[in-house]
């Protein structure tokens, strides 16, 4: 390794650091400000009156306007969109985890003809841009009569989240020791019972990681609902917020829009503060795998 070539060192100057360079600290602080400032600004603006927003963008609100939040939640339907997101994402997440872990486990722990073919069929789908499928997918969903329904969105979300889940959990199930499963089989457990009672609990860390990853991916989904979910009553949060930013812009209810934006950010922020270590670990593991 060339980088380790030894060079005569005049004096081992290792412990006596020179004057600390202020640049690293300053750079890190600056990026923190760049990241946090727009977010804080949106939260603060959600408590201001329209007049304050338009005339003094950098000031604090004279008195907090809680009414903005109430208006966004009810009149602007953010509450309904929130509920829709919760229903669709909750159901899709459960279904994805169930189907994804079943497939990953079956492919990782059973030898049979076509095993590799099925595995690659799932994994290959991860490399295709969703845009390619968009047009035919719209007509498939329409022909099944599922356009603009919760069920349609849940099934499509699941179908597009399963490949990564299989890919991630497949390697995970491979690493689990087989002795425990064999012991359970000798004890008379059925295949299903071995999976649900023994292997699934063992895979918990992997399930948590991929579950967090899937939740965020599905919660933030925009393109699929935009095409498959045209009914405003069933808009998910991202979709509703985008529609709102157009319509509120015309009505110039800026404060209501800032409140809606803040409501959309809040649950993610709360979850992040509570689980931040898990979330960062889960999401970066997803990228490295």
């Amino acid at each position, binding site marked *: 390794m060339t980088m380790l070539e030894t060079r005569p060192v005049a004096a081992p100057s290792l412990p006596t650091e020179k004057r600390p360079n202020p640049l690293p600290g300053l750079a890190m602080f600056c990026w923190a400000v760049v990241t946090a400032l727009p977010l804080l600004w949106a939260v603060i603006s959600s408590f201001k009156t329209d007049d304050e927003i338009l005339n003094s963008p950098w000031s604090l609100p004279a008195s907090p306007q809680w009414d903005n939040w109430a208006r966004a939640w009810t009149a602007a339907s953010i509450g309904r969109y929130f509920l829709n997101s919760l229903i669709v994402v909750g159901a899709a997440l459960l279904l994805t985890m169930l189907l994804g872990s079943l497939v990953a486990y079956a492919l990782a722990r059973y030898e049979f003809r076509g095993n590799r073919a099925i595995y690659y069929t799932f994994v290959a789908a991860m490399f295709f841009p969703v845009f390619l499928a968009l047009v035919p997918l719209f007509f498939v969903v329409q022909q099944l009569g599922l356009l603009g329904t919760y069920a349609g969105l849940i099934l499509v979300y699941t179908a597009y989240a399963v490949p990564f889940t299989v890919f991630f959990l497949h390697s995970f199930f491979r690493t689990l020791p087989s002795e425990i499963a064999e012991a359970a089989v000798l004890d008379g457990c059925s295949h299903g019972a071995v999976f649900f009672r023994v292997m699934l609990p063992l895979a918990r860390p992997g399930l948590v990681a991929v579950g967090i990853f899937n939740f965020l991916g599905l*919660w933030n989904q925009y393109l699929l609902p935009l095409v498959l979910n045209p009914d405003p009553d069933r808009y998910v949060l991202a979709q509703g917020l985008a529609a709102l930013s157009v319509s509120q812009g015309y009505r110039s209810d800026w404060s209501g829009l800032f409140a809606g934006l803040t409501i959309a950010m809040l649950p993610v922020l709360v979850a992040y503060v509570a689980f931040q270590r898990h979330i960062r670990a889960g999401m970066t593991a997803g990228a490295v795998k």
Partner: protein
Amino acid sequence: MRHGRWRFLLGALVPALVLHVVFVLSPYAQAFWLSLTDWTGVAGEAQFVGADNYVRLGGDSLFLDAVRNNALLLVVVPLVTIAVGLFLASMLRTSSPRLGQGYRIVYFFPQLLSLVVIAVLWGFVYNPNTGLLNSGLRALGLGGLAHSWLAEPAFALMAVMAVLVWSSVGFYVVLFSAAIEGIPRELFEAALLDGAGKWATFSRVTLPLVRETVQVAFVYLGIAALDAFAVVQVMTVGPGGPDGATEVIGLSLYRTAFTYGKFGYASAMGVALFFATLTLAVLALRSGRRERLELA
């Protein structure tokens, strides 16, 4: 037991496979066929037109704008994001653990937000009169630098790029920090003993050893840059404007299909996007194979 084995396997695989075939595989396959037709959505009235759609793409100036913009995004967004991400990650290595942890928490947060939330937020930030950016510039006495960021063709695409970089840097800081923490400490100590400065340590020790992570980052960021749909569709004027300045392939496809109902033509755009993505992935993986640095 053998009987139970097959029943379990069927039960485990069939439901997911059915969903996969119906909602994922069959649409992908159909897209290639549709791209060779002039279909406008009426059942049974798809005429085979061969490569006509692809020929038309070559003369469609808005689509060519989109290709140009995606190409620019593809070059600028990954490079800037990775540069900033690596810089901050190597700064974090030498900072105090507590402070570093705090910074990581803040940096990472935008990664969790939906791109729609980010786009609406930055739409406000860029607002020419009341936005954070212009009013901040004016407060600093730099009012001359204020612009209608999203309305001026010279700035609109840069504004989109800035948003994409802003939203992804934090994720890559965390990813790169994890990779840098995986480098044995002795290597950094040896470099320090050898009198290597900050830059030499970074370019000779850190960078070669996180190369693979950087390549993964290039693929992910490249795919995101080929997309950019949500930010453009929600934030820019038009959307895609002014005058095609922020048009991207995804937006062209969406509009062609779901506003104009030219489903065959839109599918050809999807196929073009697919080949762009494929080329990107293959190139990145190839360059990854060539030289692989191994630690003793």
